[in-house]
């Protein structure tokens, strides 16, 4: 090749120089946001994506319920940890250190269950939804109300568990990490006040009909899925909250409001209580897996195979619970089953009847159901000395279980009967027993007797994971850890 120095080369040198100098150009390094992500700027400007963020919370809870190992401290698996801590479950596999620490009420802060983390991570999403949706001006108004309502409901639901597991907790109501980072504990009373505020708002904002996945449309008649919170879920939870707060008037009113909605709710037979979308269900979680995980985590983890408890199913029901059923209680036979291995008999919860077999989803994990409202109201009425009406509510539940009506003569006797009824009605469901023992003040007596010296009253509160205490400058560990 023979090339001279023609005039043109000056031009090419200049062009190259211009190209080089243009390298500092902002245009070139602009990137579009990634194709498979949505970002905070556009997620709340569209009905579908805004609703998806809330749906994502249910989806995640449901995934955790059936997929994840239950010792690790996810809210959707709270039944096992609290069941062991209380007097419901026994641990077969004593070498399972993680579960044994619940069972012997010996939790250690360095390996504490992570309910704390999983609940606060949900609360962040809920707060982000509230902030994003409130700011948005383009969402369909009814959708905006429903989403805000669901968000506030979920915030209340999560704080309810947080305050019951840990006592006073930091109250994060925004997404501002600089503020949340330094939050001290807020008294449980104040947290309850916030829960009530959220639920009172949610009962107004939420639809009174079950909505489809877009959080906008109602279902055609007979097709409804009871997997999104409605106004009734808010009211049902309010009834529980008021009961815990000893505001019996409001607890009774809220319970009545749900019980009276007979167009949506009535009690169903024992074998149908945990079926999907049954008429007793107020709020359930739809399973999101196929195949062997297509049904609930409760079914998968509790139902024992013929080899009995072991590595995968390390827990079974305590003798004390089995013995506490009145004879003739159909729940004892319909909701409990057993396997015999050698000389040993192991009882297990059989509320959910589909374990780990590949099957269509027929059961949904049930979070709120009508029976609780009857027992809430019974207790609220008893506390207000309306013993007759209280016993009537109690007997509604007893009748379904095949038990005769009773009418304890004194308020104390009636209350104790109601507490017992809650024990046998809600065993291994969403931590009811552990929370009831604590709020009624019976925990030291019951567990002190049962567990002896290993029980200390400080065990009522779980330890906050140690690294959380370290990372939060104003947070101190619960007593006893």
């Amino acid at each position: 090749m023979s090339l001279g120095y023609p005039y043109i080369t000056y031009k090419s040198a200049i062009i190259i120089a211009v190209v080089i100098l243009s390298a500092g150009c902002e245009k070139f390094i602009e990137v579009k946001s990634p194709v498979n992500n949505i970002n905070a700027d556009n997620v709340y400007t569209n009905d579908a994506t805004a609703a998806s963020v809330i749906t994502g919370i249910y989806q995640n809870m449901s995934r955790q319920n059936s997929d994840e190992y239950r010792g690790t401290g996810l809210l959707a698996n709270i039944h096992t940890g609290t069941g062991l801590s209380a007097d419901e479950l026994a641990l077969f596999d004593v070498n399972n250190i993680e579960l044994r620490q619940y069972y012997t009420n010996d939790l250690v802060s360095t390996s504490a269950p992570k309910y704390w983390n999983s609940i606060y991570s949900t609360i962040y999403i809920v707060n982000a939804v509230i902030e994003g949706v409130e700011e948005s001006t383009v969402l369909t108004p009814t959708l905006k109300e429903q989403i805000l309502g669901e968000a506030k409901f979920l915030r209340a639901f999560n704080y309810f568990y947080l305050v019951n597991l840990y006592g006073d907790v930091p109250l994060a109501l925004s997404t501002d990490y600089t503020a949340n980072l330094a939050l001290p504990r807020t008294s449980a009373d104040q947290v309850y006040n916030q829960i009530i505020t959220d639920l009172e708002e949610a009962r107004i904002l939420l639809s009174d009909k079950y909505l489809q996945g877009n959080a906008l449309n109602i279902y055609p008649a007979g097709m409804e899925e009871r997997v999104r919170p409605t106004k009734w879920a808010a009211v049902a939870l309010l009834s529980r909250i008021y009961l815990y707060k000893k505001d019996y008037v409001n607890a009774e009113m809220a319970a009545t409001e749900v019980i009276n909605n007979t167009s949506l709710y009535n009690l169903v037979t024992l074998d149908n209580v945990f079926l999907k979308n049954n008429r007793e269900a107020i709020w359930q979680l739809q399973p999101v897996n196929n195949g062997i995980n297509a049904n609930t985590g409760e079914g998968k983890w509790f139902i024992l195979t013929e080899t009995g408890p072991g590595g995968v199913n390390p827990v079974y029901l305590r003798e004390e619970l089995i013995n506490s059923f009145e004879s003739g209680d159909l729940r004892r036979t319909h909701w409990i089953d057993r396997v015999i291995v050698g000389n040993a008999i192991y009882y297990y919860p059989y509320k959910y009847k589909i374990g780990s077999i590949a099957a269509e989803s027929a059961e949904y994990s049930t979070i709120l159901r009508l029976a609780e409202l009857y027992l809430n109201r019974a207790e609220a009425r008893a506390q207000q000395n309306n013993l007759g009406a209280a016993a009537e509510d109690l007997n509604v539940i007893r009748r379904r279980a095949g038990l005769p009506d009773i009418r304890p003569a004194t308020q104390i006797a009636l209350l104790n009967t109601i507490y017992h009824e809650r024990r046998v009605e809600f065993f291994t469901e969403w931590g009811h027993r552990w929370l009831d023992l604590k709020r009624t003040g019976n925990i030291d007596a019951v567990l002190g007797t049962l567990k002896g010296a290993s029980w200390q009253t400080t065990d009522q509160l779980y330890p906050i994971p140690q690294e959380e205490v370290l990372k939060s400058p104003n947070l101190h560990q619960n007593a006893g850890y």
Partner: protein
Amino acid sequence: MTGQTVDDLKEKVSLNVKNERVDHILQQLLGSRGYTFQFNDNVIIIRKKEPYSPIKKNATDSSINTTTISGKVTDAVGTPLIGATIMVKGTNDGTVTDNEGNFTLSNVKRNATVLIRSVGYETREMEVKGQRIMVQMNVVVSDLDETVVIAYGTTTKRYNTGNVSTIKAKDIEKQPVSNPLLALQGRMPGITIEQATGVPGAGVTVRIQGANSLRKNNDPLYVIDGVPYTSRTLYTLSQIQGGSGGNAQRNGNIPEGAGNPLSFINPADIESIDVLKDADATAIYGSRAANGAILITTKKGRTGKTRVDVNVQKGWGVVANKLKLLNTPQYLALRKEAYVNDGSPVPDASTIPDQSNADLAYYDQRRYTDWQKVLIGNTAKYTKVNTAVSGGTNNTQFLIGAGYQKETTVFPGDLSDKKGSLHFNIGHTSSNQRFNVTLSGNYMLDDNRLIGEDLTGIAMSLAPNAPELYNPDGTLNWALLPNGDASWLNPHALLKQKYRNKTSNLIINNTISYEVLPRLYVRNSFGYTSLSSDELLTKPLSMYVPQYRPFYQNESTLSTGAITTWIAEPQLSYRKVLGKSSRSTIDILIGGTFQQNTTRYMSVKGTGYSSELLLENINSATNRQVFNGSSVYKYNAFFGRVNYNLDSRYLFTISGRRDGSSRFGSENLFHNFGSIAGAWIFSEERVLKQQRVLSFGKLKASYGTTGNDGIGDYQFLSLYNAVSSVLPYQGVTGLKPVGLSNPYLQWEITRKLSVGLDLGLFKDRILLAANYYRNRSSNQLLSYGLPSVTGFNNIQRNLDAVIQNTGWEFNLNTENIKAVQFKWNSSFNLTIPRNKLISYPDLALSPDVYDYVVGQSTSLVRAYKFVGVDPEAGLYQIADKDGKIISGANLGSIEDRVMNIDLNPKYYGGLQNTIVYKTIELDVLFQFVKQMGAYNGRFGNHPGQFYGVNNSGNQPVEILDHRWQKLGDDASVQKVSSSWPTAILVPYSNAQRSNAFYSDASFIRLKNLSISWTLPDLWQQKVNIHGARIFLQAQNLLTITRYKGLDPETRSSNAVPPLRMITIGFRTSF
């Protein structure tokens, strides 16, 4: 010198020489053009040469005392050297070799000595014995004039103002490694390289002059033939290959994977690896080179006869070290003692066995298996074949290389890593030397078949009396318990899990340069890289313990992904020779960078296969779950550099760069970086030219800034991802926020100061280089730990903390013996690094308060002070911050972690000796590191426990020797327990966080041993080959260490250590 016109010499030539002897220049200029020259006092006589004819110096001079000699000059591998000069010592008689390397010289006195010289080769002296001499020339060893590759150009050690270490092909080839980075271990100061495991394609952590970033990217910039290359692999389905150091960036929502991407470059294709350390060397790479840069230059063709190189190698690799574990009687005794300590009945053959006592109640009490031998005791076989064809004319050179490598593993089963690679390089220069174009490419196809998880950890903990692997009928033995459950997870069941990673790697680079005006060059470099992988991970039901299978499904995951980069770098450069003496030059370079990286990844997890045979066919899955991600990174810059060389004595370099990165929000897109450097070659001063001791002396210093944007893409955006589950919820796939966003992210800045002294003594036979560096990184980019109350565990932010890395680097090269038949060279390097946190604003209030200490290393572990075992209770004790003993089931609090343990090396280096005796060359490299490391075996693995289907229970023997047994025992290991209640567990976990958990992990390793023997010329001539050599190479042959774990380099007992590899091979050219 007076000139005399030779009419025939009209050809225009460009010659680029510096400090070169006149006869060398003449020989290069004239030799190949058919002229000879002769020195005669101050006159050079140039004559046209008659081919093959002697120079007729004096026709009457023929006598019986003279003779005519002829011969051939070749390089070390037998390629003819064209234009080499042959001079009779003490005379002006000489000739040059022709195109075949042949020469003839007449009228040579008998017993005269001839000197043979060729540019770039060592001069040789030979006595004239016969009439035909064969001369093999060795490439110049004087390091000072070897080419050093720097950013956008080359220089020599002599004139370099920066701190650069280089390794050449001849040293890379001595090492049977499949990742070229491993060839650097122990060979240069200022760089630490650690291999994560001995599995093929293992992760490799590289740190140049320490870690500058508290918690972000600390990887150097890799540049292969001018094209930036990824420092991390894409997300991998299995972690068996181990990581390449933590804290890498994520590309969007795609996490980093295991392994190391440099293992997809064939070491045989590499000509040199240059490690750029200081600001002078790296500032021109701007934000990408805060952690230094590693430039890899691949081989190119040379002018000359077409030649073929073949290199065949075969080798064997084993795990060199085993942990001393309990044998069966020791183990069973310890287990029984555990029950006694717990006050529980000791299980025996009459006990109903379950998963917590099968070893005592069910298994054969006399059986013993060395699980290390069974699970990681195989011999890995290594086969490597490399061939290359190269050659070219003065205008066009080419090289085409092909390689094949197969490496099996130490695990049982048919596992192997196969690599096929192709490398080519074509260069063309126009006859007028003004236009130049090159194209080079590297392609590798890697098929790595492994298992999903490393069996090493299992081998360390399986009970020694665990049952047979197979039943007599050849099926897996599950050793069923009376209730029908399997009593153990048979480790061979894990082999049913299949992990395959097929990777293809393409690197293409094209440069065009044109001299538009005299000495003004326009150049453009365009590069493209694509690293793509296809993975398969199968988890058949049969890999699980039978009773757990109802909870699993047949599962397989297929994934595919690629990282592609293109880069265009237009440049203008100008060079001018200044002054009359021509000893001063100025070089100016300006250029721009346009770069874009695209990462994409998709995986599909299928479950519900009806048969294990269908696991590779995702269509047979009844459920499929898809994950995908992609991200784009754009980067551009404008840069310039001026080099000024004044009188070959004073050197100055200034460079600057303005960088833009898409990783930052619009406020902080751009940043400026720059450096200044100077050097004084004081040995060129007149005063020092008189003496003979000091042959070279240079003082150099540099200061400059580089940056770091290694935080991953899109961190300034608040992104939402899809929630992953098989089914949607109510027909909708939900969204969830990915993390906290921060739109105010800025560049992390590293300011580097470097001062160096280079000395050459006794004609450069001793070369000493000493460097001091001080690198300070500020405005740290990091994930700042947050409490979960904020919704996430961290946020990306800048923190005004300052980290300092200082250090001394020494390098000593000596030619101890330099005789014709015997040569001995040594090379020693030593680095004394120090890493320190200089400042951290409000550390006391931050979540890092218990992790870092101002004034201490950032690789700090804060541990409890270990007090020992309480002679009464038999449990570990630690001290609190006031020195009070914490005993029993009381957990230490974080404030009590008062012991500071620095995991950074205290010093490290290497010693290489090369001895050449006649045709035998011996090369020995020792690597040494002084450091601390964690060792879990100190406390065992819950000693006394035998738990669940993992059958884990075995312990290092030291547990047995030091355990507490009875009241008053002065023990260092606490009492053993079978059930591990909290009261036993808490003191154990206290102790594991104490200083006793860390021990000395220093080592001296015979890293590389290479012996080669060149076949006698006579043999080679018969079969018409040259450079034929037989060699034996060994890697990691011997390790001297006090570290008690498996390997002091990995400091892990859960991963296969780097293998002891021994290979034999043969190479030749024809």
